[in-house]
């Protein structure tokens, strides 16, 4: 039996996502930026981002945009993740292991509470 997901599956996923979005239309859009320079990748940024995407799936978080950026000159604090929620100022986190990433997604992105332990003051 073939398990290949087709565009029809995607269409269904899209419709479901649209429904969920309508329900949660009030929450401010969140943007999560992961540093993906050579330094970031060598420090484990790919798995940090994987953890972010997995948390979005597991917790069904809707309305989050995940993007990436190159080296921002803080190689020793990589993996670096930045979070912007609505109009609030950007928060920069350092040493974001997959575990910390999950924490940031749950506490900051979902609940609006900054994870102070990992904040980098720029």
């Amino acid at each position, binding site marked *: 039996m*073939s*398990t*290949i*997901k087709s*565009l029809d*599956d*995607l*269409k*269904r*996923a*899209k419709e*479901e*996502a*649209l429904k*969920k*979005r309508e329900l949660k239309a009030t929450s401010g859009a969140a943007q999560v930026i*992961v540093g*993906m*320079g*050579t330094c970031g*990748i*060598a420090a*484990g940024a*790919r*798995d940090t*981002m*994987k953890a972010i*995407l997995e948390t*979005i*799936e597991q*917790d*069904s*978080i*809707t309305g*989050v*945009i*995940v*993007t*990436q950026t*190159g*080296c921002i000159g803080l190689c020793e604090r990589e993996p670096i993740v930045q979070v912007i929620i609505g109009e609030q100022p950007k928060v920069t986190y350092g040493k974001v292991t*997959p575990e910390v990433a999950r924490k940031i997604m749950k506490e900051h992105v979902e609940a609006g509470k900054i994870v102070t332990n990992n904040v980098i003051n720029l």
Partner: protein
Amino acid sequence: MRELSLHLLDIAENSIAAEAKCIKIVVNEDSRSDLLQMIVEDDGMGMSTEMVEKVIDPFTTTRTTRKVGLGIPLLKAAAEACNGFLTIDSQPGKGTKIFVQFQRSHIDRMPLGDLVTTMMNLLVANLQIHWIFQYQYNGKVFVFDDQPIKNELEDMPLTEPGILNCIREMLKSGIMEINPDFSTDQVSISK
């Protein structure tokens, strides 16, 4: 870096920085000829011959040429340690093609690793880029082109929970179909 797919992610960053609109990544495994080849091809700003020489040598790459750092020299060294090589084919204004080859069975060849996660990350975080991923195993070919998906989704981001899952499954099952031995969790040594 411990996985070839981490190198791919890194090399693709150069293409993104070079303002590519379309990036194609090819991984070709062939157990019959004992080769593992990878290609990253973009239509970005390209490089002059002089610049190409510079990016290959880690010691002449300066901090002001921010576009490329240690990524290419690292991958080149990894290939050369495995009876392989790395070539760069680039033209200003046309784009860049990086080709790297390894002896597949070489004891020092690092594992391909979590290719699906590399692809997912590139896709999701760079929506403006047209991505084409191609995985080949002993002559069989799986091509993943993101255009039909993006057309279907219209302006919805790929980061919606159900959609992430759907795309990951498309990638995973496509690869597994031509290489049943391919394990997407080959090296879970991230802990």
